[in-house]
């Protein structure tokens, strides 16, 4: 039952995360910033609009946002939240989870290529390149966690995360946390990898892929992006916070608080760092992969 509470929280609270990040950035820049609920307003506005489709596009372009959102909703059903098992859990489901992230990315890239715009093709190419580098870091990190906790599903790994797990394996878990944080930033196209605010097509890779989407389609894409941020964030928070030691209600509250703190951290990172040169991004992701691998080795020892 409480597993569904996590899914419900993901579906309802996900758009809050970009709002928190934007408020943090505004605070650092000395502005008041948009309201916390601005992403919800944006979604409502976009859903009321009509969509415009270019004549060069095919059904792939229309399918992209729908399939992407569907995959992300399944992924949120897999991600445990608040120290309890997710509604959907089976052995090896973290591979399925990575596959779902891949499906979302794949359909978004197909839709981008379908428009025939060279800019969007460039964005798709970069998305593919960086995702290919982020995925080993993600999977190796989760393998290390699986080894340390003995769980083969995401719920088994993170649902059993307690103080005892941490005291037994501080170094590997801390390394995986850092590595997954980098993956979180890369997958959600946040600052050291990509600047979500830029509107110069040459430098961005995620936003440029969805330039041709409008109205409800853009709403679906933004909602899916918020969900992706929520599920990946819930993995980072799930590893960082051993909430299993707390009572159910408190564990849930602590996890939500952890998500908000994660967003504030992202906002601080975005305010303090500049975007990396494109040639430096692979090095960052490679570094994350090395951290995961080191965690795995130490875990095996």
């Amino acid at each position, binding site marked *: 039952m409480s597993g569904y509470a996590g899914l419900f929280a993901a579906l309802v609270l996900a758009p809050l995360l970009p709002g928190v990040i934007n408020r943090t950035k505004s605070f650092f820049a000395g502005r008041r910033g948009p309201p916390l609920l601005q992403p919800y307003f944006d979604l409502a506005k976009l859903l009321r609009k009509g969509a415009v489709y270019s004549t060069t596009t095919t059904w792939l372009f229309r399918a992209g946002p729908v399939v992407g959102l569907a995959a992300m909703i399944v992924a949120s059903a897999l991600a445990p939240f608040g120290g309890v098992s997710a509604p959907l859990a089976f052995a090896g489901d973290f591979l399925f989870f990575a596959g779902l992230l891949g499906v979302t990315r794949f359909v978004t890239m197909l839709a981008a290529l379908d428009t025939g715009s060279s800019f969007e093709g460039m964005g798709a190419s970069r998305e593919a390149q960086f995702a290919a580098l982020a995925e080993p870091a993600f999977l190796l990190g989760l393998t290390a966690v699986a080894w340390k906790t003995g769980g083969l599903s995401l719920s088994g790994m993170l649902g059993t995360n307690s103080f005892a797990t941490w005291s037994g394996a*501080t170094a590997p878990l801390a390394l995986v946390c850092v590595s997954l944080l980098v993956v979180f930033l890369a997958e959600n196209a946040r600052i050291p990898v990509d600047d979500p605010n830029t509107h110069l097509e040459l430098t961005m890779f995620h936003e440029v892929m969805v330039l041709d989407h409008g109205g409800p389609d853009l709403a679906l894409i933004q909602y899916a992006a918020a969900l992706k941020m929520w599920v990946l964030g819930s993995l980072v928070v799930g590893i960082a916070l051993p909430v299993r030691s707390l009572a159910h209600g408190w564990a849930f509250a602590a996890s939500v608080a952890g998500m908000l703190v994660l967003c504030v951290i992202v906002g601080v990172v975005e305010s303090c760092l500049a975007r990396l040169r494109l040639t430096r991004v692979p*090095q960052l992701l*490679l*570094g994350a992969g090395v951290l995961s691998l080191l965690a795995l080795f130490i875990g095996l020892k």
Partner: protein
Amino acid sequence: MNSWIDAVLVLITLTSLVLLGASRLGTSIRMVALQGVLLSPLPLLLAGPSGFGPRAAMLAVATVLIKGLGFPWLMARAVRGGSQRREMDPRVGYNASLLAGVLLMVVAFLLSSRLPLPPGEGTPLVLPVALFNILAGMFVIASRRQAITQVLGYLVMENGIYVFGVGIASHQPLLVELGILLDVFAAVFVMGIVIFHMGRELDHTDTDRLTLLNDWQKEKE
């Protein structure tokens, strides 16, 4: 106690990895300095309750002074001495170096799983971290062109040997450890001065171009 040792050892490994991927001389020197400081608590942590005393404390203090402050200062002086390029152009690129670091890590962990430790000595991480630092140091020496980076690689290698010595043979006399430290100090001191003067005279410390230094070539010109 063990988790503290492991945390220090992991941080030492991370500094070596950063050194493999770093392009700026300043960052590299800072990483080696950090590594020297990180090494210093090891004699105290690994000595155990019996060996915990003035000898281990002396070794720790000597390590901070020489590896954490002395060497980095010498290296920083050598960098400032010449108008060297801040960016280095290595034989193996930075990303490839990181990947090589991963391979070396695999080798170190495999090798250490074959080498049984004497019971009750150190933690299981001591041996792989020591081997990794030795291998990473050798890799840096072999893959970089600048003399100064090669000295940094030598220092990382020596740090690996230090971890090995403190972790595996904690019963060896203090005199041996201090003697090794003094040897390394003398070597790095000489290298630091040589690089400093090379940088001033030649404006570069590219070891590939040092063959141009002989008289024979001048006559041929």
